[in-house]
C-alpha cells in the first residue's frame, strides 16, 4: 500500500505557482501535442506566405498548380492539424491537470498521438507530392490518392481516442475524489468541446471512409450527399474550436487578472447550447446548393432559431464581465473603465485574450451570422467574404487565444521562461493587426464579387476578360500587407515558442522572486482565484457597467451590418 502510493506520488509534481498536482505523464503528452501543433502551424504559415503573395495580383508569385497545392496544405495544416493537436493538449490539461488527477491509460494516449502524427505526415506527403490537389474540402468527383483519405482517417481515429481518454479522466477524477463539488468551468467547456469533437469526427468517419473506398473504385459517391455529410465534419470541427477557445478565454481571464465566473449556471447553459445546436451550422455551407429545400435551409442554418448564436452572445458578455468584475475585486473600481485602462496590456496572455474576444466577436461573429443567412448567402457564397469571415474567427479568434495561452503554458507546463520576451509582448498586437487588415480586405473584395480559391482573377487567359472595380486593386494591396504582417506575427510566435521549448531557461523560485523576464505577470504574481467577504457583495451589486456599454456597442454594429446586407441584397436580380 505504502509503496504503491509512493510510486504514484513519483508520477506527480506540485506546481509551485498554482499549487496544482500535475501528472507528469499528462504533462509530457501536453508537451508533445503542443510541439507538433506548432510544427504544423509553421508549415501552414509558410504556405500562407505563398498564397498571400500569389493572390496579391501585382506579385502573383506561384504558378497555378503550386497555388492550389499550397492552398490545400494551408487549409489542412492550419484548420485540422495545428488546431486539433493543440486541442488535444487542451484536453490533457483540462482533464487530469485542472482536476488534480492522474491520466488514465497514458500508453493509449501515445498510441493516439502516433496515429495522429502518422495521419498528418501521410496527408502532407500526398499533398506536397501533388497527389491530392483537391483543396481542404475535396468535393467529389474531384479525386485524390486513396492514401490522402486514409491519412485523414488515421488522424481522426487518433483524435477520437484522445476524446475517450479525456472522458475517462473525468470518471477517474470523480471516483478518486481528486476535487470537490462540480468540475471547474474550464473543464466543463473542454468537455463540451470533446463532445462536439466526437460528433464531428463521427461525421468525418461517415464520409471519409466511403470516400476512401470510392477513391479505390469500390463504391459510388453522390456529390451532394458528400457535401452534406462532409460539412458535418468541416463545420462542426470549427465548433470544437469555438468551445475550446471560449474555455481558454475563461482560463486566461482567471490566470491573468483573476477574472471570475459571473454565474456558473449561465455560462454552463451557454456551453450546453453549443452541444445541442451548433452541429446544425454545417447547413450554412449548403444554402445555395440544389439538394435541399428552403425549410431545411432556414431551420438548420439558424441552428434552430440561432440558439447557438445566443450562446456566443452570452459568453461575449460573461467573459469581459468576468474580467471586469475580477479587476474591480482587485481594487480597480474607479469609473466605468479603470479596470480596462489599468489592465496588464504588456502581458501577451492578457492582450491576446482581449484581442481574441474582440476580433472573434465584432468581426467574426457579426460577419458569420450575416453571411450565413439563407438569402444573404447568395451575395457571399464562395466569394472572398467567406475566408474573410473565417480568418477572423479561427485565426484572429481561436489561434490567437491559443497563442495567448501558450505564453502561460510555457512557464507553467514546460517550466521555461519565454524566450525573446520583448518580442512576445508585441506579438499578439502584430498578429491581430495583420489578420484584421487581411480579413477586412478579403471581406470587402468579396462584396465586389472577387471569388475565393482563385489563382487569377483577371480572366487574362479566359475567353472573356474580367474588369473589377478599381477599389479592388487597393484592397489587394491592403490584403497583401495584412497577410504579410499576420505571417510575421505567426513567425514571431513560432520563434518564441520553439526557442523557449528547446533552449529556454528553467523557471525557478529564484527567477519568480526576482521577477526575471520571460514570465507573464500572472505567473509572477498569480491573482487570487477566489474572493469572499462583504466587499465582494458590494462590488457585485454595482455590476459591470463597462461591459454593458461594450456589449451594446457590439449589438449596434451587429444590427447595422446585418440590415445593410439585406439592403444590398434587395438590389440584385430577382431570384426565386
Amino acid at each position, binding site marked *: 500500500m505504502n509503496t504503491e502510493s509512493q510510486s504514484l506520488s513519483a508520477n506527480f509534481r506540485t506546481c509551485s505557482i498554482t499549487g496544482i498536482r500535475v501528472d507528469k505523464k499528462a504533462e509530457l503528452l501536453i508537451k508533445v501535442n503542443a510541439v507538433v501543433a506548432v510544427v504544423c502551424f509553421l508549415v501552414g504559415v509558410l504556405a500562407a506566405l505563398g498564397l498571400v503573395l500569389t493572390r496579391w495580383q501585382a506579385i502573383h508569385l506561384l504558378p497555378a498548380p503550386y497555388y492550389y497545392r499550397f492552398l490545400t496544405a494551408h487549409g489542412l495544416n492550419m484548420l485540422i492539424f495545428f488546431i486539433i493537436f493543440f486541442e488535444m493538449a487542451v484536453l490533457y490539461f483540462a482533464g487530469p491537470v485542472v482536476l488534480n488527477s492522474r491520466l488514465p491509460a497514458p500508453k493509449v494516449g501515445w498510441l493516439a498521438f502516433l496515429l495522429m502524427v502518422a495521419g498528418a505526415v501521410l496527408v502532407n506527403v500526398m499533398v506536397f507530392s501533388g497527389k491530392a490537389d483537391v483543396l481542404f474540402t475535396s468535393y467529389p468527383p474531384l479525386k485524390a490518392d486513396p492514401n490522402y483519405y486514409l491519412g485523414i482517417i488515421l488522424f481522426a481515429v487518433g483524435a477520437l481516442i484522445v476524446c475517450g481518454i479525456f472522458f475517462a479522466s473525468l470518471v477517474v477524477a470523480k471516483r478518486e475524489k481528486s476535487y470537490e463539488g462540480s468540475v471547474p*468551468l474550464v473543464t466543463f467547456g473542454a468537455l463540451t468541446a470533446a463532445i462536439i469533437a466526437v460528433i464531428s469526427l463521427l461525421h468525418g468517419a461517415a464520409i471519409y471512409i466511403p470516400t476512401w473506398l470510392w477513391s479505390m473504385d469500390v463504391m459510388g459517391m453522390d456529390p451532394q450527399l458528400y457535401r452534406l455529410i462532409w460539412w458535418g465534419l468541416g463545420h462542426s470541427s470549427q465548433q470544437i474550436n469555438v468551445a475550446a477557445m471560449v474555455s481558454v478565454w475563461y482560463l486566461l481571464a482567471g490566470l491573468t487578472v483573476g477574472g471570475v465566473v459571473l454565474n456558473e449556471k449561465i455560462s454552463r447553459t451557454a456551453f450546453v447550447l453549443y452541444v445541442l445546436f451548433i452541429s446544425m451550422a454545417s447547413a450554412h455551407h449548403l444554402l445555395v446548393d440544389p439538394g435541399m429545400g428552403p425549410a431545411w435551409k432556414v431551420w438548420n442554418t439558424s441552428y434552430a432559431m440561432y440558439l447557438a448564436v445566443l450562446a456566443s452572445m452570452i459568453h461575449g458578455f460573461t467573459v469581459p464581465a468576468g474580467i471586469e468584475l475580477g479587476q474591480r475585486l482587485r481594487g480597480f473600481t474607479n469609473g466605468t473603465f479603470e479596470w480596462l485602462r489599468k489592465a496588464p496590456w504588456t502581458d501577451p496572455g492578457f492582450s491576446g485574450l482581449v484581442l481574441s474576444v474582440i476580433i472573434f466577436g465584432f468581426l467574426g461573429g457579426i460577419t458569420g451570422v450575416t453571411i450565413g443567412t439563407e438569402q444573404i448567402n447568395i451575395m457571399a457564397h464562395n466569394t472572398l467574404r467567406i475566408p474573410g469571415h473565417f480568418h477572423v474567427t479561427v485565426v484572429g479568434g481561436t489561434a490567437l487565444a491559443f497563442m495567448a495561452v501558450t505564453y502561460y503554458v510555457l512557464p507553467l507546463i514546460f517550466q521555461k521562461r519565454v524566450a525573446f520576451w520583448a518580442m512576445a509582448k508585441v506579438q499578439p498586437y502584430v498578429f491581430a493587426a495583420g489578420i484584421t487588415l487581411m480579413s477586412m480586405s478579403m471581406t470587402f473584395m468579396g462584396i465586389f464579387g472577387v471569388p475565393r480559391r482563385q489563382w487569377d482573377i483577371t480572366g487574362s*487567359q479566359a475567353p472573356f476578360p474580367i474588369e473589377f472595380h478599381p477599389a479592388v486593386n487597393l484592397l489587394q494591396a491592403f490584403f497583401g500587407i495584412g497577410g504579410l504582417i499576420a505571417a510575421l506575427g505567426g513567425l514571431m510566435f513560432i520563434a518564441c515558442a520553439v526557442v523557449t521549448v528547446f533552449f529556454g531557461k528553467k523557471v525557478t523560485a529564484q527567477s519568480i522572486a526576482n521577477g526575471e523576464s520571460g514570465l507573464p505577470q500572472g505567473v509572477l504574481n498569480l491573482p487570487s482565484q477566489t474572493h469572499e467577504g462583504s466587499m465582494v457583495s458590494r462590488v457585485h451589486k454595482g455590476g459591470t457597467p463597462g461591459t454593458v456599454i461594450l456589449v451594446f456597442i457590439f449589438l449596434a454594429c451587429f444590427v447595422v451590418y446585418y440590415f445593410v446586407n439585406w439592403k444590398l441584397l434587395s438590389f*440584385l436580380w430577382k431570384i426565386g
Partner: protein
Amino acid sequence: MSEEFHSAIVAPRGIWWRPAHKQEKRWIIISFIWCMILFAMMPLWHVRGGQNPTGIRAKVSPEDFVARTNRFIEEFKVGEESGLPVVQPPPGADIYLLARMWQWTPVLKLKKDTQYTLHLSSADINHGFSLFPINVNIQVVPGYDYGLRVTPNSTGDFRIICNEFCGIGHHIMVGKVLVEE
C-alpha cells in the same frame, strides 16, 4: 449574506444554480430577442423579398443535362462568340447553362425585366456560378438540376465566374451573359 466568486479553474462547491445579476439577465433577454429577429427575417424574405435560393430542384444525370443544353442551344442559337454559341431565348423560357471543365455554355442573351427559369448543372465536377458584377452566387453540383427563376433588372455585359475550385483551368472558366432592353 456574503457572496463567493471564483475563477474558471476552481471547482464550484455546493449549489451553483443561482439567480443571475440583472444586467446579465437583461443582456440574455435582448440577445434572445435579437436571435428571434435574425430567424424571422429568413421566412419573411421568402414572403416579401425578391431574392431567395428556392428554385426548382431535381436530380438529373450529367448526360441528360448536356443533351437538354444542346437542344436548347440548337433551338435558340443566334450567333457565336469566342467559339461559344450565343443563345437568345424567348421571355419566360427555360434556359440551360452547362458548367464543365472549364467552360460555361452557352453565352446567354436576355431581356431586361423578363423572367426566365435558369437551369444550372455540371457535366463533370462541382462548379460555382458567380454572376459578375451583380454578385449572385450559386453552387453547381453534378447530378442535380437547380432551376432558378431569375429576372434581370439592369442591362449590360455580365460575366459568369467559376467560384468553386474545379482543377487547374479553374481561372479560365469565364462565361458571359448579355442583358438588353
